[in-house]
Structure formats: structure tokens, C-alpha cells
């Protein structure tokens, strides 16, 4: 009788995490940062149609890195969750925290129960008022369901540690749009290579845009903002 080899649970989790991390590291990174108007998300993305950054609800945006079909599936689930919740209760009851928890549940479940973990890292960002003041929230969710709560900035994707360190030195609170976008690009490229506006996907989440806070920033506008 053939006996399966014994693999310790630690080893099994480690292997899965390595597998997911490798998949994520292959993709380009993205940065989300709190700036003067709200939250800015800058992603390196050579495709103009396969989006990494998108709208979920009035004040909630989604960003994903890693395997496109996997994070897009999560994005659509998020849009459905938010629209259903807004329809059953009220638009004000749809919030990023509960959505982030749902994502974490789903990713955690897949990580431990399925054949293969999802090779994705996602971000759920929300701009909202807390009394008179604006309050930005970013939930950075990893392939295994780990949730990190950030308020100033988050870096997702390949080489995220190096980009994180570079961005830390460039980051200031309350930057205007031009400054914020340039800081993001500098951190992504390490100032070593040029990047075409066409290869960037930029979007902002700002209360000033009205009910639907999400707005894509077109390549022509990026060109004007780049130094």
C-alpha cells in the first residue's frame, strides 16, 4: 500500500504562500496615497482596457495586482456586494470596512481550503466624512486574507518593499495632485527609467467629484501633471 508523504502544516502553508508571492511578484506595482483631495491610486499598467483600478461604489475604489482574472473576479464580487447592500438598505450603509472583511474571509478560505491560493493582493479604499473632517481609509488585503489598515499610503505588487521604502522618503501629508502623482511615479521607477503616461493607470477618489467620488485621470491629463 502506498502511503502519502507526510508534509507538516507549516511546510504546506509556507509552500502556498511562496507560490502566491511568486505570482504577485511577477506583476507591476501600484501605490495608493492620501492626498489633498482624497485618495490617489497610481498603477503601472501597459494595458488601457484591462484595469487594475476601478470603482466599487460611491466612495469606494478597488485596486488589484497579480493575476488579472483572479482580482477581476474579486472586483466584480465587490461591486455586486456593494450594489446589493445599497439596494437592500441604503447607500450610506455600504462601507469599505465590511467589504474588506468579506474579501479577507474569501481569500483566507481559498488559501486554506482550495488547491491553489489566489495570486493577488488587493486594496479597498474609501473616502468619507467623519463629522466635518475628511477621513481616508485603505485596506490592504493579502493573498492569505491578512488585512492591513493604512491611512496614509499603501504599496502593492512586485518589488513592493523597495518601492515602499522609496515612497516613504518622498511622501508628505496633504500633497496636491501634481506633487502626489510625481512622487508615486518616482517611487515606482526609482527615477531610473522613464514611464509613458499611456503605461500608467491613475484614478482618484475625491468627495469633490460628487456622489460618485471615483474618477479616472486620462493619459492627456497625466502628461500635463508629470514634470
Amino acid at each position, binding site marked *: 500500500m502506498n502511503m502519502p508523504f507526510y508534509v507538516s502544516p507549516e511546510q504546506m502553508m509556507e509552500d502556498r504562500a511562496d507560490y502566491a508571492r511568486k505570482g504577485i511578484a511577477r506583476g507591476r506595482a501600484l501605490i495608493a496615497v492620501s492626498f489633498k483631495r482624497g485618495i490617489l491610486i497610481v498603477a503601472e499598467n501597459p494595458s488601457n482596457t484591462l484595469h487594475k483600478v476601478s*470603482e466599487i461604489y460611491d466612495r469606494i475604489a478597488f485596486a488589484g495586482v497579480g493575476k488579472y482574472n483572479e482580482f477581476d473576479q474579486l472586483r466584480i464580487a465587490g461591486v455586486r456586494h456593494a*450594489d446589493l447592500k445599497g*439596494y437592500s438598505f441604503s447607500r450610506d450603509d455600504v462601507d469599505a470596512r465590511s467589504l474588506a472583511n468579506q474579501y479577507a474571509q474569501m481569500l483566507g478560505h481559498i488559501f486554506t481550503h482550495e488547491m491553489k491560493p489566489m495570486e493577488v493582493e488587493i486594496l479597498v479604499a474609501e473616502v468619507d466624512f467623519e463629522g466635518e473632517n475628511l477621513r481616508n481609509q485603505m485596506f490592504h488585503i493579502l493573498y492569505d486574507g491578512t488585512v492591513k489598515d493604512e491611512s496614509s499610503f499603501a504599496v502593492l505588487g512586485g518589488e513592493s518593499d523597495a518601492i515602499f521604502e522609496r515612497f516613504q522618503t518622498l511622501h508628505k501629508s496633504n500633497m496636491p495632485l501634481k506633487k502626489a502623482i510625481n512622487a508615486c511615479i518616482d517611487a515606482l521607477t526609482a527615477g531610473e527609467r522613464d514611464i509613458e503616461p499611456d503605461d500608467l493607470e491613475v484614478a482618484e477618489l475625491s468627495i469633490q467629484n460628487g456622489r460618485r467620488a471615483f474618477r479616472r485621470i486620462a493619459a492627456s491629463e497625466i502628461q500635463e501633471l508629470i514634470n
Partner: protein
Amino acid sequence: MTLPSFSTEDDPGPNFVALIKEYGVEPLKVQHPVDNLAHGTTCVAIRYKDGVVLAGDRRATSGHHISHRTLEKVFQSDTFSGVAISGAAGPAIEMVKLFQLQLEHYEKVEGKSLSLEGKANQLSTMIRQNLPAAMQGMVVIPLFAGFDTREKIGRIFQYDVTGGRYEEKSFATTGSGSLHATTVIKLGFKTELSSSDATELAANAIFEASEEDAATGGPDLIRDVFPTISLITKDGYSPVPHSDVSLIFNRIIENRISRNGDHK
């Protein structure tokens, strides 16, 4: 609420109505006629040089009783379109809510909006689904108007109770006062009307309908409530501000008073 996930065969795609069905929310099904429901009344849409003007009165009636004086019947459905309703108020407002959600849901899931034609067809399906309720007295007949960003023109769609969809080249009306509103528009309509002329024509049509039809509300000077007027152009949907609407209706009233002359 957990995250919705579906197998490939059951996936509702970008369709919000199909999605809520998966969650057991079905369109209204009525077995017996319902009496004394609130009904909404006259709405008009007129094409002019920059797009479409959409207007509606504010009254809802249940039989001879006025149930609401401030009901909104003209709604923005998305950036470039609006919908005006007549018929049973409850189901009509629910239909508008679902329609708005459907357009936004599609836009978010697919990453681009439906074409104006697609939006008009979507509304058609919703009216058709309401047919069993309509047979029991809960008729909902909306008007749909929008700016077609591909053709660069304003377009108007009229419906019947079965979801039949009819595109109108110049104007359309719906509701119990529509007969009178149509006559007014017919007399004043020209192609390439200016925005102010089109707004005024729409206001006159609603005013006349309210004079002749008991279920249509006119300008309510006591409560400072006026019919709703909105414009849809290449810049999107914009409601005409209350102060402007009030001015237009006050002018109409003054004009009517002056016609009486000394024969009071």
C-alpha cells in the same frame, strides 16, 4: 452578507435585476386588483437644439384624493439620461430605482456605460416584467430621454404597457394630462428650439395639463412647489434650478391674468 459568488452557468453577468433574483427578490406579483393606489400624472419630453428637456408635475392622486403634492416624477437615470414616470407611484418609483441601479451596475461591472439604445431596451424589459401587475391596475408608463453620445443628439423614447418601445423624433408625453400637454407642444414646437424656448414650452404644456386634468398638479404658490424641469445635453443631466422654474411659472400665471383684462 457574504460576497456573492456564482458558478459559471449561474453567473448573472452585469445584470442587476438578474442578480437580485438570485437573492430571491422578485418583481411585484399581484393576484388581485389593488384599489386607491397613488397615481402620478403628466410628464413631457421635448427635443431641442442641444438635447432634450424633460418635465413633470408633482401631484399624486388616489381616486379623487390628492395623496402627494411634492412627488418627484422626473429622475436622473445616469450621466446622460433621465426618466419621467406616470402611473402607479409605488411600482413606478421602484422601477426607476432599479433602472438607475441597473445602469450604474452595468457600467461598473463592464467598465463602460450601455449605449442609449441599450438603456431604452433595458427599461422596456422592466415595463414588460410589470405587465401582470399592470393588468391588476398598477400600470407604469415611463418616458425615457437622453443624450446619445455616439450620435451626438438628444433622443426620446415612449413606451406602452407591454414594454413596446417607440422612439419619437420631436416630443412625447405620458399620463392622464398628456392629451392637453400634447396639444400645447404641437402648437409651439419647432425644430432646433433654443433651451429657454424648449423649457418654456414644456412648462406651458404642464401648466395647461394641470388646468384641464384634475390628476395633474400645477404650480403650487402656497407651498412654493413647482413642476420639475430638467435638461439633458452633451454636458449631462442638469435640473433647472427652483428659482428659474418659479420665474417661468410666475410669468405664465401673469400672462394668463393679463388676458382676462377687465372682464373679471
